[in-house]
Structures are given as structure tokens and as C-alpha cells.
């Protein structure tokens, strides 16, 4: 039954909308990748290479757009640029309404560029500007030196950032649905919602997953090939070129553009809306709800991320493959992931009920445990990455030295690995905090009774087309994300300072 139903449904999809779903997804990925690279890479290079007034502030501000959920950004930009909106009026209608494929690409670019920026900057900092200088002394122009020397060295890092951007883009539903760009993920959700066929939706999600695995695999391959380059020219403190006044102003403005688009403009618009509106319900409960689930998940993610990174470091091929598979949780549309978690929990419950019919604890359905499980399934990638890169810095010879001095296994972990990898683990935990804070479908369906989060509350108002009411919880979400992202920036720069120290 399920098979035949799914089959005819697939036939219908192939006959009608599938090509447009796929081409929309592909075009959106291309636009977003170009957009995030254009916003992320030059800003990373300018803030690494040059010194100018406002640089320190921009270093903190540039990653902050990640605190603004892309669907919130979409609501805000669409309402600002629609006829009658402030941007439309101010520019006399020259600024087109943010909608459709280009609109969605724009929103994703301004929301996801921090991934590219953060990783590119890390690469520029650790490779040093020395290679660039060397190329210059050998007669290369600045553009040539950047293109031929600096960029290839940073390419693996930029690719890694881009892989995250691609996964987020493919998995998004809220933004593309609102802006009227039916992508493959919209197709997945429609198979479920309109055709009442969760199995077909799961099958389509699997296709998406395989495509993502492929993208991710190629990214890994590229990264492995150029590992030597990563280790090459780092560990040298930077000296930055001080710019002339007008050049500094220009560079400063250029670097401010992404923050302006991704954070400040939509944030201000939401603020005006929130100030004009009397909230219907106090968002305080939702605020605490968000803090509770996000901090608990961050804690769990730090442990799991570390464990997974260990498995990848010391385990065999199976352990490594499992860790890679956990990464792809990122690319599954949130609602489908939530559906999967519901089904898995129910199956586990059946198993427990069979083993001990009376004493079995309740794990199926909602509740905090189910919710934490769902978050880990979805955001493991965000936790594993930083933990892994933190552990890379701890060489096996350190372990051997410690062991030869009589430390046992746990002492090695507790006294050597954890202190050395601390900033990496903390980065992992904080990134998961931000992701969980923004997560919607799993939170909605698995949360405990009467439990609100800011994301759920913003979604309820927005889905009822009450943007003004949605503004306050959205703003609080951003406000909560800001200090976390600032902490992430600080940890990343601390890590760079550590590795730069002789």
C-alpha cells in the first residue's frame, strides 16, 4: 500500500513539479554560494591583512548575523521592501521586493555568510600573510598574489564553510516557502502535508541526504589533499598593513555591509514593529524555555562532540563513517528530522515495553529527553567539527609522553586533552546553543506541556501573519544569540592566538 501509493506519487512528481523543485534548489545553492563567498571571503581577508579604525568592532560584529534566523530575516526583508515598506519608500521603489529565487538567495547569503567568513578568516590568520608578502616581493601584483597564493591556501577552509552553507540552504523550508521559491525541500514537505504520505517524504529526504553526503564527501577529499598546506606557514604573529584615511574608510564600509544587511537593517525594522505593538503574551516564559533547552543541549553536545571526535581520531573505519554520517543531520529538513525522531522514539518505547512491560520508563512522545535527543541528531555536525579540529592539535606524541610519565588514560584526557581542546569544545557547545535556539519543528512537536520557546512563539505569530507580534520574540532570540556569537568569536581568536604563540 505504502509502496504503490509512494510510487504513483513519485510518478506524479516527476511528471509535474520535480524538475522545478530540483532546478530551484540547484539555482538557489549557486546563488547562495556565490553570495556567501562574496560577503565572507573579502571581509575575512580585509580584516586579516589590514588595520583600520573599526576593525576590532567588525571582528566581533561580522559573525553576528548568524544569530538572526533566516526565516525571521525573510519576514523582515520582505516587509521592508514590499510596496509601502520603509526601504521601498526610501529608495522610491528602486530596491526590488525581496521575493522569489533571487530574494531567497539574498536572504540566505546575508544569513549564512558567517560560516564562510569564520572559516576563511581562520585560514588567512593561520597561514599568515607571509606567503602573500613573499609573492609580492617576487613581483606579483596584490590581486595576483591574493588569487594565486593566498586564496588556494585558504581554499579548503572556504570549501568547509561553503559545505555548511549548502546544507543549510538545501534543508531550509520556512524561508523558501514564504518567499515563494518551491525547492526540493518544499516538495518533500508537500508530499507529506498535501499527499498525506510521510513515507514518500522520507524517501525524498533520503535523496537529499545522499546528494549532501556526496557534496560533503568531495569537500573532505579536497581538504585531505591539501592538509600539508594547512600546516605549512602558520605560527607567526601577524603584522597588519595600516591603511590611509580614505582607504580605511572604504574598507571599513565594505566590511560593514554584510552586518548591515544581515543584522542591523532587519533588526531595526523588527524593533520599530515591536515598539509599536503591545505584546499579547509575555515572552518571559518562552525566553527561559529557550535558555533551558539550548543550554542543556549545548552541554550534551560538548560531551557527544568530544566522544565522536575521539571515535574519529582513534576508531576504525566504522567509527569514522558513523561520525561522517552524523554530520549529515544538518541537511535533513527539520520537520522530516522531527518526524524521524518521533518514529525512532516510538520504536524504542515498544522495545522497552517488550523487555519489561511494567517498569519501562516513558521515552516516546514528547518531553525534555526526546527533545534533547532530536537536537543531537540534528546538530551533531556543529559540535563534532570544532571538537575534531581542537583534537587535531593534540599530537599522539603528547599522549605517549604523558603515558610514559605514568599518567593513565583518564588522566591523559583530563589533564592534557581537555585543557588543550577547551576552546574547541566550548565553541562546539556554543554553536549548538545557537542552532537549538533557532530550531523550530522538533521543538514544536516534542516540547513538554505548556513549554514555550522564543522560536516557537515567533513562528506562531508569523504563521498567523502577525509580523508585529512576532517581532518581540524574534528580537529576543537575536539578543540572546548576540553574546553567544561574541563569545564564539572571542574563543576562535583566542585559539588562533594560542597557536600563534611560539
Amino acid at each position: 500500500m505504502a509502496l504503490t501509493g509512494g510510487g504513483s506519487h513519485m510518478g506524479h512528481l516527476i511528471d509535474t513539479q520535480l524538475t522545478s523543485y530540483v532546478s530551484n534548489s540547484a539555482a538557489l545553492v549557486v546563488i547562495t554560494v556565490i553570495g556567501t563567498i562574496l560577503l565572507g571571503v573579502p571581509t575575512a581577508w580585509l580584516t586579516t591583512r589590514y588595520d583600520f579604525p573599526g576593525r576590532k568592532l567588525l571582528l566581533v560584529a561580522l559573525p553576528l548575523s548568524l544569530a538572526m534566523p533566516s526565516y525571521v530575516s525573510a519576514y523582515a526583508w520582505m516587509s521592508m521592501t514590499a510596496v509601502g515598506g520603509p526601504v521601498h519608500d526610501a529608495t522610491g521603489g528602486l530596491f526590488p521586493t525581496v521575493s522569489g529565487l533571487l530574494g531567497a538567495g539574498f536572504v540566505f547569503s546575508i544569513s549564512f555568510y558567517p560560516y564562510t567568513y569564520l572559516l576563511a578568516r581562520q585560514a588567512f590568520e593561520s597561514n599568515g600573510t607571509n606567503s602573500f608578502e613573499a609573492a609580492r616581493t617576487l613581483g606579483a601584483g596584490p590581486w595576483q598574489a591574493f588569487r594565486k597564493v593566498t586564496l588556494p591556501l585558504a581554499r579548503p577552509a572556504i570549501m568547509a564553510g561553503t559545505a555548511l552553507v549548502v546544507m543549510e540552504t538545501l534543508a531550509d523550508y520556512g524561508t523558501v516557502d514564504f518567499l515563494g521559491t518551491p525547492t526540493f525541500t518544499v516538495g518533500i514537505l508537500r508530499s507529506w502535508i498535501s499527499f498525506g504520505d510521510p513515507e514518500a517524504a522520507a524517501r525524498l529526504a533520503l535523496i537529499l541526504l545522499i546528494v549532501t553526503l556526496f557534496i560533503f564527501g568531495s569537500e573532505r577529499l579536497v581538504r585531505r589533499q591539501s592538509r600539508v598546506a594547512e600546516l605549512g606557514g602558520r605560527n607567526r604573529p601577524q603584522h597588519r598593513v595600516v591603511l590611509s584615511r580614505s582607504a580605511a574608510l572604504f574598507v571599513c564600509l565594505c566590511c560593514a555591509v554584510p552586518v548591515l544587511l544581515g543584522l542591523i537593517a532587519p533588526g531595526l525594522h523588527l524593533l520599530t514593529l515591536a515598539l509599536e505593538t503591545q505584546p499579547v503574551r509575555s515572552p518571559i516564559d518562552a525566553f527561559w524555555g529557550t535558555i533551558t533547552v539550548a543550554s542543556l543541549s549545548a552541554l550534551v553536545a560538548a560531551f557527544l562532540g568530544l566522544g565522536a571526535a575521539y571515535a574519529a581520531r582513534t576508531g576504525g573505519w566504522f567509527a569514522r563513517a558513523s561520525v561522517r554520517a552524523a554530520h549529515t543531520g544538518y541537511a535533513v529538513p527539520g520537520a522530516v528530522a522531527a518526524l524521524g525522531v518521533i518514529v525512532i522514539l516510538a520504536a524504542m518505547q515498544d522495545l522497552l515495553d517488550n523487555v519489561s512491560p511494567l517498569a519501562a520508563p516513558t521515552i516516546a512522545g514528547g518531553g525534555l529527553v526526546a527533545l534533547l535527543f532530536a537536537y543531537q541528531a540534528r546538530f551533531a555536525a556543529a559540535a563534532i567539527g570544532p571538537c575534531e579540529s581542537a583534537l587535531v592539535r593534540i599530537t599522539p606524541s603528547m599522549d605517549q609522553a604523558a603515558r610514559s610519565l605514568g599518567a593513565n588514560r583518564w588522566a591523559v584526557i583530563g589533564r592534557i586533552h581537555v585543557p588543550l581542546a577547551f576552546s574547541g569544545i566550548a565553541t562546539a557547545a556554543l554553536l549548538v546553543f545557537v542552532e537549538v535556539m533557532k530550531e523550530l519543528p522538533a521543538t514544536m512537536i516534542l516540547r513538554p506541556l505548556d513549554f514555550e520557546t522564543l522560536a516557537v512563539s515567533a513562528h506562531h505569530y508569523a504563521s498567523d501573519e502577525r509580523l508585529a507580534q512576532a517581532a518581540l520574540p524574534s528580537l529576543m532570540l537575536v539578543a540572546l544569540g548576540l553574546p553567544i556569537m561574541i563569545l564564539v568569536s572571542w574563543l576562535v581568536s583566542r585559539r588562533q592566538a594560542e597557536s600563534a604563540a611560539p
Partner: protein
Amino acid sequence: MRFGIFGLIIAALTLSACDAGPSGDGAASGGDEGKMLIVFSSRHYDSDYALYKAFEEETGIDVRTIEADGDLLVERLKADGERSPADVIVTVDAGRLWRAEQEALFAPLESASLNETVPAGMRHPDGLWYGLAKRARVIVYAKDRVNADQLTGYETLADPAFKGKVCARSSGNIYNISLLAALVDRWGTEKAQAWASGVANNFARDPLGGDTDQIKAVAAGECDIALVNHYYFARLMNDDDDKKIVENLAVYWPNGEEGVHVNVSGAGVAKNAPNPDLARRFIEFAMTPKAQRFFAELTNEYPAVPSVEYSNAALEALGEFEEDPISLSKLGENQAEAQRLFDRAGWP
């Protein structure tokens, strides 16, 4: 740092303890005080919060809720099975009520008082669910650009005379799907397909945003007519800041021969309800005039119980209309067919 971690663990434990606590208490005590009713709802409106509060005040029963999008709720209820804590299930759309019915998530509720107050068309024949409130799908037009005589029912949206002048939201939206499901029943598949293709050919722009965005697009002159739910229009009319948007717009009731398409929010007793008796009391309470007024006055919906009096300036201004007498379960049965027609029509 350590204290932080322990603090969080303690917070987690307290939270899960609170979570398990009240349900046990509720079952044990004899009076209504301290009893707990669990509502799984895909509505999240001010009217519903008012309804919960009024029910709590009247009975002393504690109302706890899970609010999530309808399809997620159905999957959760399916997976939870016998362990489901839900007493009452509430959804916003007849198609989803039908889906929950197909999945056997409802228990029949026999109630003489409900049969008396709720019209037969607004409830399931076996009492699996009862309608709470209604929304009508209407056409909004610009008074200065469109002559009301040109409007002749839903057919107008597909009329070539309106090429490049029509706005509507995307086809994945449940209100559009339910409307086309009703039209399939009314006209048959072929004519419904022709209609969907005709509308898609008339679009002034690709579907974008929600119903309110379509109304704003008509106000801004991007299109002349738009397909929306009445209650978004009524909300703009009732808002002091927003009413200038709808100043030059009017609602056309596509009565035609068959009447205006109306969708329903409904509530039913969950099959594995721990407290079916409380669930019945809640649904009966929701049909009292006091509770029904909330839907009209706080959410601009039409109450399921027609005799209820309410004060809502916008709804009064919109006036009377003829309702399509279609059996609501058809909306669910034709749902997949409707999406297929939309897909073939190229209505994104």
C-alpha cells in the same frame, strides 16, 4: 563552571519532575480542582487562550497545551499510540480533521446538548469531531479598478479578462488546497483543473507570502483581485493602524450558485484520552455562547454555533453570505487530488 553544569542538571531534573507531577495528581483527586486537561492544538490564537482561561475559571480544571502545526500533531499522536497524554485534539482545517479521522485518532463523543447546538454540517456524523469556528475564502478587489459586476464567483479568478491581475499564495497552502478540493467536488476534476490552470495563467506575480501580503499587493496596485481568507481582511479592518490598507478595497462573496467555500476548525476527543470526561466538558464548554463569542471577537472567525451573538464591526460590515453546503469530509478526501491539479497547473 562546575556549578553552572550542576545547576543545569538540577534544572533539568526539576523540569522533568514537574513534567511528570501534575498528571499523577490529577488522576488521584476527586474534585475538579487540580484535575488536568491536555489539549493538542494546531491553533494558537488569542481566542483560544481566552477559551482555556474561561474554562479554567469556570471549572477549576487546569488546561495544558501542546501547540504545533497540524501534520506534526497527527504524526505525534500516531506514534504515541496508547501512551498519548492528549485528551482533546484541535486542528484548523477540515482536511486535517479528516486525516486525524483516517488515522483513527478520535473517539466518538455522544452528546445530546452538542447535537442540539452545533448544526449538522459543522460536526462529524458519528461525533468524532465538532466544528469550533469557520473561515470563508473570499475575493478581495480594488474598488477603483474593478467593477463589482465583473465578479461572478470563484470562476472570475480564472477569467482571461483578469490576465496579469490576480494574486494568490502558494498551492502548498492548506486554504488553497481545501478550496480546490471543494471545487473538485462541485465541478468535477476536469473543470477544476481548467480553473487552476486559468488562475495560474492570470497571476500578476509568482505566489509569495501569506494572505495578508496578497491584500497588501492589491492595495499597492500590484494586482486587482486576490484570493484570501475573510479573517485576514477583517483583522486589517479592525486595526487602527492597518485599516488604511483596506480603505479602497472590498470583499466580494463568491456566492455563485453553490455558495462560498468555508473551512472549519474543529475539536474531538482523543482516542486514548486519559480523561475523556473532561474532554467532553471542554468541547461542550467551547460551544457555549460565552466561548463562541471569543472566536468572533478575538480572531474574527464566524462561530460554529450560528445563533451566537457577538460584536465585531468588521464582520458586520462584511455582511451576509451563502455557505457552500459541501460535506466537510470531502475536503480531506480530495486533498491529494487538489494538490495534483495545482502541480499540473503550474501554480507554484
